[in-house]
């Protein structure tokens, strides 16, 4: 046991002599795979939408908001959008929150989003590129 344990800590020494796959090599490979899987899910779309889905956000109604976005993608013909959930960022009084990140533009953060407002964001922001300033958190 003690001999084997020693080996664990001497990757750097061994590396010079033999070709050893270290935990760091493995995790870097995993990261590369993870990145390509995320890209495979459409991460490189020009628009990324994040909906807060922690207990607090869900209590404020974010799962309904999420459904509106999901439906818009599956049925409403909303294309080139990567939709993801996220944890709570800490804006308790403005939940549910939605972020829209577009390449080459500053991130837009919306607060107090209802299903109706979400539909508006889809129609005006995601489809026409208009930032709805009155709902933006700054």
């Amino acid at each position, binding site marked *: 046991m003690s001999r084997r344990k020693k080996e664990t800590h001497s990757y750097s020494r061994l590396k010079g002599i033999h070709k050893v796959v270290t935990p760091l090599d493995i*995790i870097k490979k*995993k990261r590369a795979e993870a990145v390509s899987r995320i890209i495979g899910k459409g991460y490189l779309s020009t628009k990324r939408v994040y909906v807060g889905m922690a207990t607090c956000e869900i209590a404020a109604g974010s799962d309904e908001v999420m459904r509106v976005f999901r439906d818009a993608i599956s049925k409403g013909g909303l294309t080139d959008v990567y939709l993801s959930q996220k944890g709570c960022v800490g804006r308790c*009084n403005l939940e549910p929150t939605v972020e829209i990140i577009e390449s080459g533009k500053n991130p837009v953060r919306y607060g107090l989003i209802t299903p109706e407002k979400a539909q508006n964001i889809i129609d005006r922001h995601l489809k026409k590129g208009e930032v709805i300033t009155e709902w933006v958190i700054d």
Partner: protein
Amino acid sequence: MGKEYVVTLCEGPSCIHKGSRRLRQLLEKKLEKHGIAGKVRTFLSGCLGMCAKGPIMVINPGYVIYGGVTVDDVDEIVEQHLIKDNPVARLTVKESHLYNRFFRVFGDAKFFGKQMRIALRNCGIIDPESIEDYLSLRGYEALAKVLTDMTPEDVIEELKKSGLRGRGGAGFPTGLKWQFTRAAESDEKYVICNADEGDPGAFMDRSAIEGDPHTVIEGMAIGAYAIGANKGYMYIRAEYPLAIERIQKAIDDAKKHGILGDNILGSDFSFDVEIKLGAGAFVCGEETALIHSIEGYRGMPRPRPPYPSVKGLFDKPTLINNVETWANIPVVIIDGGDWFSKVGVGKSNGTKVFAVAGRIVNTGLVEVPMGTTLREIIYDICGGIPGNKKFKAVQTGGPSGGCLPEDFLDTSIDYESLAEVGSIMGSGGMIVIDEDSCMVQMAEFFLEFTQSESCGKCTPCREGTKRMLEILTRISKGKGQDGDIEKLERLGHMIQKASLCGLGQSAPNPVLSTLKNFRDEYKEHIYNSKCRAGQCKAMLSYLITDNCIGCGACLRACPVDAITGNKKEKHLINQDICIKCGKCYEVCKFDAVAKS
């Protein structure tokens, strides 16, 4: 130019020293001169953690970081980058601290500007249910680094260098705790994550686990490697179903990737995490009570020493840390103890997460570098008190902490400064109180909580808190007696000294600190039967003044028919029937109902 730029200037102490304020003035002048002042937004942020390369300027979109900017560079930045969209390569800094990504998304929002997210760096950024998201942001790299080329001693050394202290409230140096647990000889050791968050109004741990469960697991695995343990427990309250679901999914996903379980990442280190649910007893946040609860016994504390680092779970050496402490570990390993130790102030390094609630415009979760003042959190980050009300007090540390009045608003947030003024850092609850709240009721509320959560094992806590609560209830009911204040103080000091565990030792804090800082209010309650906030119903009566036009709105609103009067004549409240609900006060449009 098509882009609307946001230029962020670091306003940390180090960058100010190097001239960031002068840079901003100059920048705004140049923007004016080029006629693009309306299109470029300038923004000041708190310390961005790149002090060595300051002054720091960040330009979004694109997240271009300029370091060591001087007044001579401003022209070039404006003309090349902001007008021609051509970043100035010679000034760019390549920094890849783990919190960078948070700043990219939220860095130019006022609420987040003065914050620095280390423990919560991924919360609100990644999908917490996706291990891919976590891996893509250098997740589990710290664990791999530790397994590849650090001995357990190296890890502990790095942690000691960082100066990280326990975030559960007591602030014990984490590196030392790890060292003691490593030094204890045993065939088996354990690590525990304390996620039994029970302070009223506090939700830091829940958000951390729901937003980024893998960080906590990674921290625990590193801890287990450092002390030589193979088994970990996550003790989490059953009231957090989503957090439990997400941490379970995180554990399962990590196992699938070979990051938990036997021979982690091809090494011969094995580690597994099991979830234990707490049934919601406040005392189980105390480490020895928590350990009893995991063992299957009633959650009751025991005297220390022996400390858990020597004799803990199943009598084996046990390393127990709070969620937030664990979440800091990967950063300490990747960005280094030296870097971490530069964030913060004095003997308190790094950041602290607070759940800000109460009478405040922006309630929410903030993570600030140690040394930030209470005023900065309450006014700069959270936007102050709503409705132009006057600030009265801030309660830090929940039911174990103290109430600080306005004079202490400039207190720096670190373990020592808060203790000096009679409060504690605590686990991170922060409740803001305005002039409409009664301090006696406030103290009563917290004591009611600790009194009912007292496990009953030791007499000072069980009986003492009960007697204190009786006196407080008496005072708020208008039946306070001469000598009550002194009696409360005597009892409070006795409970602090004689109680077995942290619950009892800290339970009198809200009462003692309000007695110290708001003694006049107690006196008014006892000797003048007056509650200046108008909250204690027993001391309150509603009267109808001559402004009354006899519209009858109050008469209809009164739930107990205490109001009489004919139409268009002044109405009258029968004080014997009135339950002081305040409905008449709310509905009156003519300011004709007065509180006295």
